[in-house]
């Protein structure tokens, strides 16, 4: 089948592409990139006002399957991903049971077969994520995981982290760390600041994040291997990562859109959708995160999409679970808060949301080049829209961004010979 994507601006810094072009796709493979293509085709999509970029990848999502299918499934997570402009998702292993052996890896991958979105499971570092013994990292590597993490919890001890980095280096896969010294956070639910004092909520200090980052960096120096810091939220951690990169350590980091879009002021009305781990921080932290994105300290923007049931988010603030959904607001927030504010160029955003995540986690490359399987995200950079949580494809609606007016929207995605556009999924093979 021949499909023609017309009139969009095609942008891919990997191949120095930034022109208004038509793209011809035959059976899912890019065969021509030219302006004003005249070609007899099966379908034409006029993408005037749009840009076509390499398919975005979100390397930090919780798909909740197996175990909490009431909150999300691989299938609904994929739909949310498509709606949010992503063609690849890396899903965290804090499921029930945890993704800690090949069988569960295969189970999750099987749920995603024949999908537009590529789903890459991340394996647990320790058995049952209990922090006691290494999980079957080798077996999971063979089954296709792209990294290891006990996310939701930090890697429990320095000893386990040392083993994890040593062992995973045999497969050249990164350990993703959720930086949190639990002895400091205890029952904390929001950033420790003047606001936690005013709101009377148990504090969760940024100190807890940077201490584990520092611990892990020293271990990384000692052992080698690859370390990736998940959802960096504080200026101290940005600084520590910047310094580690200057020392040429094999370390990378990510930030979520909610950590650069909100401060802990958002907790004022005790909306449990603002309860996330790590917690929302201060404006100084937001500024440092943005600076870290600009100077390359932070490599990746990832959502930490964390679906939770309505019932659980209706618990009192101190009891409600941590997390918010993010797949369907990630691109809009990034364009609104970083692109339209001139903090990042479109090319830089493509690096943070497609090229870097794919490179760091060795996902299939997305490159807008003739002869390569098309893996594309279509954006309208200037469309203004209002976040409506009831229109989410995700099974959960725990977002504090409902009603927000955003500028820039994912319009469609194309991958694996499938196109999702205008709310319709079609095969283009």
């Amino acid at each position, binding site marked *: 089948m021949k499909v023609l994507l017309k009139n969009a601006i095609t942008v891919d810094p990997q191949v120095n592409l930034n022109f208004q072009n038509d793209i011809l796709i035959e059976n899912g493979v890019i065969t021509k990139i030219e302006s004003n293509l005249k070609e007899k085709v099966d379908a034409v999509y006029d993408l005037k006002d749009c840009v076509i970029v390499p398919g975005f990848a979100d390397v930090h999502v919780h798909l909740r399957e197996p175990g909490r299918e009431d909150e999300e499934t691989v299938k609904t997570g994929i739909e949310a991903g498509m709606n949010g402009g992503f063609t690849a998702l890396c899903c965290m292993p804090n499921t029930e049971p945890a993704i800690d052996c090949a069988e569960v890896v295969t189970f999750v991958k099987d749920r995603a077969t024949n999908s537009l979105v590529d789903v890459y499971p991340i394996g647990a570092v320790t058995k049952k994520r209990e922090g006691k013994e290494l999980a079957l990292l080798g077996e999971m590597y063979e089954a296709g995981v792209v990294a290891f993490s006990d996310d939701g919890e930090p890697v429990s001890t320095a000893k386990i982290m040392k083993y994890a980095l040593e062992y995973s280096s045999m497969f050249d896969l990164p350990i993703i760390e959720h930086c949190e010294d639990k002895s400091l956070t205890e029952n904390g639910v929001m950033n420790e600041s003047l606001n936690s*004092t005013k*709101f009377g909520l148990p504090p969760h*200090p940024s100190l807890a994040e940077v201490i584990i980052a520092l611990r892990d960096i020293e271990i990384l120096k000692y052992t080698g291997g690859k370390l990736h810091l998940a959802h960096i939220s504080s200026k101290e951690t940005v600084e520590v990562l910047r310094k580690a990169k200057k020392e040429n350590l094999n370390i990378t980091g990510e930030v979520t859109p909610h950590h650069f879009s909100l401060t802990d002021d958002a907790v004022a009305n005790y909306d449990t959708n603002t309860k996330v781990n790590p917690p929302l921080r201060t404006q100084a932290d937001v500024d440092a995160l943005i600076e870290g994105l600009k100077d390359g300290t932070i490599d990746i923007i990832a959502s930490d999409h964390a679906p939770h049931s309505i019932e659980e988010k209706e*618990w*009192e*603030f101190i*009891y409600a679970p941590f997390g918010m959904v993010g797949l369907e607001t990630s691109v809009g927030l990034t364009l609104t808060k970083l692109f339209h504010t001139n903090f990042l160029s479109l090319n830089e955003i493509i690096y943070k949301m497609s090229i870097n995540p794919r490179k760091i986690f060795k996902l299939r490359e997305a490159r807008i080049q003739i002869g390569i399987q098309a893996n594309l995200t279509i954006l309208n950079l200037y469309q203004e829209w209002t976040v409506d949580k009831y229109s989410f494809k995700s099974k959960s609606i725990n977002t504090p961004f409902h009603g927000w007016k955003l500028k820039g929207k994912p319009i469609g995605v194309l991958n694996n010979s499938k196109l999702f556009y205008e709310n319709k999924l079609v095969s283009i093979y």
Partner: protein
Amino acid sequence: MLSSRHLLGLYQVPKKDIELILDTAKTFREIIERPIKKVPTLQGKTVVNLFFESSTRTRISFELAEKRLSADVLNFSASTSSLTKGETLKDTVRNIEAMKIDMVVIRHSAAGSPHYLTQLIDANVINAGDGSHEHPTQALLDMYTIREKFGKLEGLNVCIVGDISHSRVAMSNIFGLLTMGANVAVCGPKTMIPKDLEKLGVTVFTNIDDAIQFADVLNILRIQLERGAASNFPSLREYHRLFGITKERLLKSKKDILIMHPGPINRGVELSSDVADGSNSVILEQVTNGVAVRMAVLYLIGTRTEEN
């Protein structure tokens, strides 16, 4: 008229509201000295005391205030949170509201629960203490007591002593007293001072003698062992040694310092018996004033609804 139909805390409550409550409380304070202590002001109104955390004093004080205003009173106590009980706060409260009640007085271990209630129900909500957040009626009765003794709040030096980080009483007092123009200080172990408190305009002492030199009023908090304070300091004995208010320490000040305590007292820990029972202690007056202040709050909020 009060600016809000709820009393969730004293943060950002305007000065005129606090003055109105304190002035109204003065009238009720006179009424409760009479042989017949009951007035028909809230006749036909139903008030629910929704206590999700064990409390005797505050509940009794509210209940008495409600009964003296002739309201119909319902007491609902649940010592466990909604989480362990299986029923959410939302369901519990909606059930109770379905019985057509007018006002809810809520005590809950989770900060923000009263705020959440206002999103769920139409009834007026009065916060009787939420976690480590606020306890506005306690602060109002403290301010009432201070104002009775000094005739004013503005310019007075008030120091709150103890575990500030776990204290809703401290936070409500800080917000209210700052609004009223008092000079507010706290004194306690560094481990019990919440982050960035001084940014509110509060002076922080960690030496009790400095605090005593500063103070016209010492509001001494209970060491809340039940709220996990035990890990914040080495021992009760050491706490008493460093921060306990004793007669000897008070003698170092030239002023007659007013001694307050929200109760219940840990004698020999945060203050010695001779201070608690001494001539400058107004601890029991606070209790009496508490009923009058709560009557004022219930009355002002209850009648405000009628005007709407």
